[in-house]
Structure formats: structure tokens, C-alpha cells
């Protein structure tokens, strides 16, 4: 019966079967069970106290009756944190170490060549590699629940915490696996487990937020709203909202992970996927600011603009991640410039379709669309907040910010065309310089000119716009447009050079 079951499991997911086969020896299972039981015993003893209630007097006084008291609430808290730590730090370590080992040994290549889907292989890894850890944790769950019941903690909250730990765990596993595939360095596993420890401490804070340790139930937080939904007030809403957030984040990470596993030279996301991801992230982010504005209805116009600065910075970080995820590397662009573009039908519509949706085309148009989606989601609401009169300035602020992000994106694309070994580092340094240096320079030189600031320093427009003149805004925009045209021209030139036939070079040499 068990054999048939194992066999069926192996047919359904050979990778899971292979991982379990290497790990499910009786000795290893016994060791995991014993470790779980011993740790539980230690936890109980650390959170209990025994006092003697009856002594017998003989030559020396001897205790014959004890009162043993377990401090259930601290026991529950300690065990919950340890389980989370094991899942986040231990599980991540095991998974990342395994994938790095397989990647460096070259065995993943054979699995890639098999007809099994990447989803099936990766699922097998995620379920199978940390299986003994899951087993140990599963054995410890009953004690967690017994402790919760004995401490009279609201079981709904306990269930919510366990579900949210599972949701967050899935997301971090996928994220760290993706990171390990991108950079399969030997230190990745240990680094990931350190980050796992840090995430545990942060997430513990999030889970106990709104929990009252005196009444032992969730009392909520009325300030936490998303759009007009009072997420923080209700435990069910908090669980569903956080679960969906992690679910959506896991979905996109899963997409990138699968693409990368199937084809190590592919971009992390397709251009089409990036549009959906941008839309989902912007709606998620808008929900936060919506409730923030609603809370502070009496904000001055100046402050309403200033609030956009942190939003812009979050968006800059997010869109740069998107740029990184959709930028094809040099070889793909060389192929595109040399062969694919030439093979496309000459109709303009089809060329455009390739630039908007194609897997291998440059990112200029895709970034434009991502920025348009972002603006389309934010603009109506922002104009409604500041009024039609200031609406023009809001629009200008969005265009100024979008232009700068577009320039950064094109800069990334230009740098990835380089042949240098340290392309990633060089791109990072150049990008940091372009984003950070102008503000440092203007501050040191005490430049007060709003046009210059708005033209070159990301986010500064939200500070200057309420007072800025139309001329100043116009010249900032003009400067940016000229720079964009130059960057675009430069990219086209480089692509043309890369796409040029090699025989042309040879013939030139012959002529020379």
C-alpha cells in the first residue's frame, strides 16, 4: 500500500520523489523526530517552574509533592518564534544550498532537458529538500496549539498567524530560490539564512501588531486602512489582505523563477507580464496613500505635494526592478539587432508589436508603457485630491519623474550592451551616480534654480512644483526631452553597430 503510494507520488512528481528518497531514511527521520521532541522538552522546561508543596521530615527534609506550573503564554510565543525562525532561516538555507550545489555541478541542465515542466521540478524541490524540517515543525505544532488553548489565546489569531507564516514562507522561499539561480555563489545559502533571521524578527512584529497580550486576543488597529477598507480592524480582513499580498508577490516571483529555470539567459519577466505586475503593484500602493490622504484631509497643498516624494521614491525603486527584470542582456540584443529585427515584416504595426511585446527587443517602449500605466493609475486620484487648478502641476510632476525613470532605464540598457565582465556592478555604480550625484552637487554648489533641480534630481519636483513658474517647468521638461532624444539616438547607434554584418568589417579591413 505504502509502496504503491510512493510509486504514484514518484510518477506525479519525480523530483519530489528523488528528494524524499535521499532524505527519508529511517535514521534521518528518527533524528528529526528526536530533535523536535527534545527542543519541545527544552522549551517546556524553560517556561515552567516547580515548587515543593509537601516536605517529609526525616534526617534531612525531603520533598514528596511538587506543584508544576507551565507558563503557557510565553511558551506559546517562544515556540511560535522558533518555528518561524526554523522555517525562514533553516528552510531557506537548505533550499538555497541545494540549488546552488546542483547549479554549480551542472546536474540541473539534464533536468532542464527532460520533458517535465519547470513548475513540477521546482515544486518538487520546495516540498522535498526541507522535508525533514517540515516534519520536525509538524511534530511541534500540536504543542503550539495546546499552549495556545491552555493560555486562553484566541485560536482565530493563532490560526491567522500560522497561515500568514506559511504564506510569507512560500514567498521568501521563491524569492531566495530566484536569487540563488541568478547568482549561484557558495555564500548564498548562509546569506539567505541571515536574511531569514532578520525577516523573522520583522515579521514577528507584524504578527503581534494589534494583539493585546492581556486580553489575549486581537484588538486590531483602526489606523491601518487600504483604500476605504479597514484592514487592521478585523483579523479576518488582515489575514485575507496579507495573504493576497503575499499570494500576488509569490505569483510574480514564481513566474520569474520558472522563466529563469527553463532558460537561464531569458529575462526574468516578459514585457507583457511587466505591465500586469506594474498595474497590480500601483493599485496596491495607491490603496495605502488613499487612506493616508483620507486621514489628513486638512493637508495643505504644499504637504499634499510633499507626500508624493516617498511615493515617487518607492516607484523609482519598483520600476528600476522592473527594468532589471525585462532588460535583455547583450547577446540577446545582438541577435535581435543582427537577425531578428531584419526578419520582421516591414509593416510598422508589426515592428511596434515586437517592441511592445517581444521577448528580445530593447526596453524603451516597454518602459514607456509601464510609466503610462503608473501615471494612469495615480493621476485621476491625485488631481481629485489637489483640485483641477493644481492638477496641471501634478501632471507636470508625474511627467518630470517619469522622464527621469525613462532615462535611467535607457542608461541601464546602454550599459548592458557593454562587453565588460562587471556589467552589473558598472551599471549599478553609474545608476547610483546619475540618481544621487546631481542633488549632492547642487547642494554643495548651493544651486537654487528650480529648473535645474527639477530637470536632474529625481523627486525634487514635488518640493519645487507648488511655487514653480510655468517657464521653469517648461524648461525642465525641454531639457529632459532633449536628453531623452540623445539617449535614444545613442541606443539606436549602438544597436546598429551591433547588428552590422561581420563581413562588412572584414571587407573594410581588406579595403584598408
Amino acid at each position: 500500500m505504502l509502496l504503491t503510494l510512493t510509486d504514484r507520488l514518484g510518477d506525479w512528481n519525480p523530483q519530489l520523489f528523488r528528494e524524499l528518497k535521499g532524505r527519508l531514511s529511517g535514521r534521518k527521520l528518527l533524528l528529526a523526530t528526536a530533535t523536535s521532541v527534545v527542543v519541545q522538552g527544552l522549551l517546556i522546561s524553560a517556561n515552567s517552574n516547580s515548587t515543593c508543596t509537601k516536605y517529609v521530615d526525616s534526617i534531612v527534609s525531603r520533598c514528596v509533592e511538587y506543584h508544576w506550573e507551565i507558563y503557557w503564554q510565553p511558551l506559546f510565543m517562544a515556540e511560535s518564534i522558533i518555528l518561524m525562525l526554523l522555517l525562514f532561516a533553516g528552510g531557506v538555507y537548505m533550499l538555497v544550498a541545494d540549488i546552488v550545489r546542483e547549479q554549480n555541478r551542472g546536474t540541473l541542465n539534464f533536468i532542464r532537458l527532460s520533458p517535465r515542466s519547470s513548475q513540477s521540478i521546482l515544486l518538487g524541490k520546495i516540498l522535498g529538500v526541507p522535508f525533514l524540517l517540515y516534519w520536525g515543525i509538524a511534530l511541534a505544532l500540536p504543542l503550539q496549539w495546546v499552549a495556545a488553548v491552555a493560555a486562553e489565546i484566541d485560536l482565530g489569531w493563532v490560526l491567522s498567524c500560522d497561515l500568514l507564516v506559511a504564506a510569507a514562507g512560500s514567498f521568501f522561499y521563491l524569492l531566495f530560490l530566484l536569487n540563488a539561480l541568478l547568482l549561484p555563489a557558495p555564500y548564498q545559502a548562509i546569506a539567505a539564512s541571515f536574511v531569514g533571521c532578520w525577516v523573522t524578527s520583522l515579521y514577528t512584529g507584524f504578527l503581534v501588531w494589534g494583539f493585546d497580550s492581556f486580553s489575549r486576543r486581537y484588538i486590531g488597529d483602526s489606523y491601518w486602512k487600504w483604500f476605504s477598507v479597514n484592514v487592521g480592524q478585523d483579523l479576518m480582513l488582515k489575514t485575507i489582505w496579507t495573504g493576497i499580498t503575499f499570494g500576488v508577490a509569490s505569483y510574480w516571483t514564481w513566474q520569474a523563477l520558472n522563466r529563469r529555470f527553463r532558460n537561464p539567459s531569458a529575462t526574468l519577466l516578459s514585457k507583457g507580464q511587466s505591465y500586469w505586475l506594474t498595474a497590480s503593484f500601483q493599485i496596491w500602493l495607491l490603496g495605502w496613500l488613499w487612506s493616508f490622504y483620507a486621514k489628513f484631509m486638512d493637508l495643505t497643498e504644499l504637504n499634499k505635494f510633499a507626500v508624493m516624494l516617498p511615493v515617487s521614491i518607492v516607484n523609482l525603486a519598483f520600476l528600476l526592478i522592473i527594468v532589471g527584470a525585462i532588460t535583455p542582456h547583450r547577446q540577446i540584443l545582438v541577435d535581435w539587432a543582427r537577425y531578428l529585427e531584419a526578419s520582421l515584416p516591414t509593416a510598422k504595426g508589426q515592428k511596434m508589436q515586437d517592441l511592445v511585446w517581444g521577448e528580445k527587443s530593447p526596453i524603451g517602449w516597454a518602459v514607456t508603457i509601464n510609466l503610462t500605466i503608473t501615471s494612469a493609475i495615480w493621476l485621476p486620484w491625485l488631481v481629485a485630491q489637489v483640485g483641477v487648478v493644481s492638477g496641471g502641476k501634478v501632471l507636470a510632476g508625474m511627467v518630470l519623474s517619469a522622464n527621469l525613470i525613462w532615462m535611467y532605464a535607457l542608461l541601464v540598457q546602454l550599459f548592458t550592451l557593454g562587453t565588460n565582465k562587471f556589467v552589473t556592478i558598472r551599471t549599478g555604480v553609474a545608476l547610483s551616480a546619475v540618481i544621487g550625484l546631481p542633488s549632492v552637487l547642487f547642494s554643495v554648489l548651493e544651486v537654487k534654480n528650480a529648473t535645474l533641480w527639477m530637470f536632474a534630481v529625481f523627486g525634487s519636483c514635488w518640493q519645487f512644483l507648488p511655487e514653480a513658474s510655468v517657464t521653469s517647468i517648461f524648461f525642465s521638461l525641454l531639457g529632459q526631452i532633449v536628453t531623452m532624444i540623445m539617449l535614444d539616438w545613442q541606443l539606436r547607434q549602438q544597436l546598429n553597430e551591433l547588428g552590422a554584418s561581420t563581413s562588412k568589417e572584414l571587407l573594410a579591413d581588406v579595403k584598408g
Partner: protein
Amino acid sequence: MAKELAIDTRGLTKQFDRHIAVNDVDLQVASGEVYGLIGPNGAGKTTLIRMLATAEEPTTGEIYINGELLKRDSTNPTLKRRLGFLPDDFPLYDDLTVWDYLDYFARLYYLRQPRRRQRLYEVLELVQLGNKRNSLISTLSRGMKQRLSLARTIIHEPILLLLDEPVSGLDPLARMQFREIIKILREAGMTILISSHVLSDLAELCTSVGIMELGYLVESSPLAELYQRMSRQQIIMSVLGDRAPLESELRHHPQVEGIEYLPNSQSLRVYFSGTPEASADLLRHLVQTGIPLTEFHCTQEDLETIFLKLGHKQAS
């Protein structure tokens, strides 16, 4: 009727930066053929095989496997079930036993019981590892590991087998064992594309050969046709005592095109343009003139000589 093509590439090109590894290759391999790919290191053999095995995406061009187009940006699961690829390096899972390793790959290729068990026994017998089935992979010799890799490659009964330098680094005995296995697979009707620097092996195994140089497929033809076109007939002759009288007789024969002295002082290699009947006449004439012949052996130039004659150099 023309034989169905197992491999058909059209304008297949792979470019790495400014270097074109495979350049506009049109390769046709008929079903059931054993096709040998030869050429110096860096000629593009491995890249070509990797593209056929779906391990590398072509820059441009098309690949048809048994008439079915290999789609770009797709996982091609159906086609992958028909392909077996053995690369020149063969990382294995040292922590698994031979049986568990093959069982794992059989499952990856959707083999179900009871066929899976039967197939495992079949391939273990074929690669002569039946007695090692419960051994850990880490305890196997290099030759055994290579045979195990071959077993993994054919476990799902692919119709097209792609072997990249399969005998590199093997000792002569292991090489011979490997060659025998390929012969059995050939007899079973599998189409095999094999790249190797050991041209004597290819001459023994292949029905057709292709020569690659600087990314181009510069020659592709059946081995018999290549021999007919490129190989000169030779007769190895040995005499008792002095070879001068023999040499003198040969110099006057109109169909003798050249004579080469072999290191052995009593033997000669004679390049002969006549038919088999003419060589029989030559033998009769030499015997009648009293030349004490001890050897008269008709042969032809081997693949290595033809390859070098074509102006290609085997070493990189």
C-alpha cells in the same frame, strides 16, 4: 521514395557576441543513420549538437526533428521525449545508486510501471552495469560512469541520440565497450549523431559523415560515397629479400600511380588506379615473373587521411 529525415536544419546559425559559432548550416540526417560529425576544436560541433538537443537556442534558422519544427521560446515537451543527449561532460548524482538514478530519469520521462522496471533492466544489461545496479555512483570508474550516462540518455527510448565526444578520456577497453553499445543501438534502428576526434571509431560506426570548420558544414555525405570520391585504392606488398625487383616491375605498370616505402624494408604501399580484375592481373604477373611475394593486400585510404587530404586539420 526518399527516406524520412530525422534531422533537418535550415540556415541554422548561432552567434556568440561577434563570433559566429555555427554559420548557416543546412544539415540533413535520414532516419536510422549514424552520422559522424568531425572537425577541429572550435569548429561548432558542440554548439550544433546543443542546439539540436534544445540545450541552446539558435540565433536564427530552423530545426526539424522527424519533420516537427522545434519551437522557439517553448519548452517543446513532446520533442524532448524523442531526444537523447549525452554531452561531453556528464555530471551525475554521486549520492544515488545506479538503479535509483536511472529510475529517477525514467520517471522524468514519464515511464510507468511495469515498463519502467523492464526498461531499467534492459539498459543496465546493454551498458553492462547490471551487477552494479545497487552500487553508489560515487564508487564507479570513469568508463562505468560514461556508460551510466549513456544508459540515462537512452532510458526513454529516444528516436534521435545526440552524442558529443562520448569516448573522450576513456581507455581503449572502455572505448571498445562503448563502441559495441553504439553498434547495438544502430542495429535497433536508432538515429545517432555523434561527434568525435577518434576518426577510426567513426569510420567503424557511421553511415554518413559531416565535416565542420569555422562554423560551416563543409562536407556532408554518406561514408561510402566519400570513400569512392576521395579515397585512393592502395595495395600493400611485401617480398622476401630485396624489394628492388618488385619496385622495378611496378614502375613499368601503367595503373600504378605511386609507390611509398613503408618503414619495414621489405614492404611497399602502391597507389593503384585499376579495377579489382586489374589488381588480380598484376598479382598474377608479379608471381609469374618470380618475385617472392609474401603479402598482397588491397585496401583504401582511411577517414583520417581523407580528412587531412581535404585540407582540414584535426587538432585545433
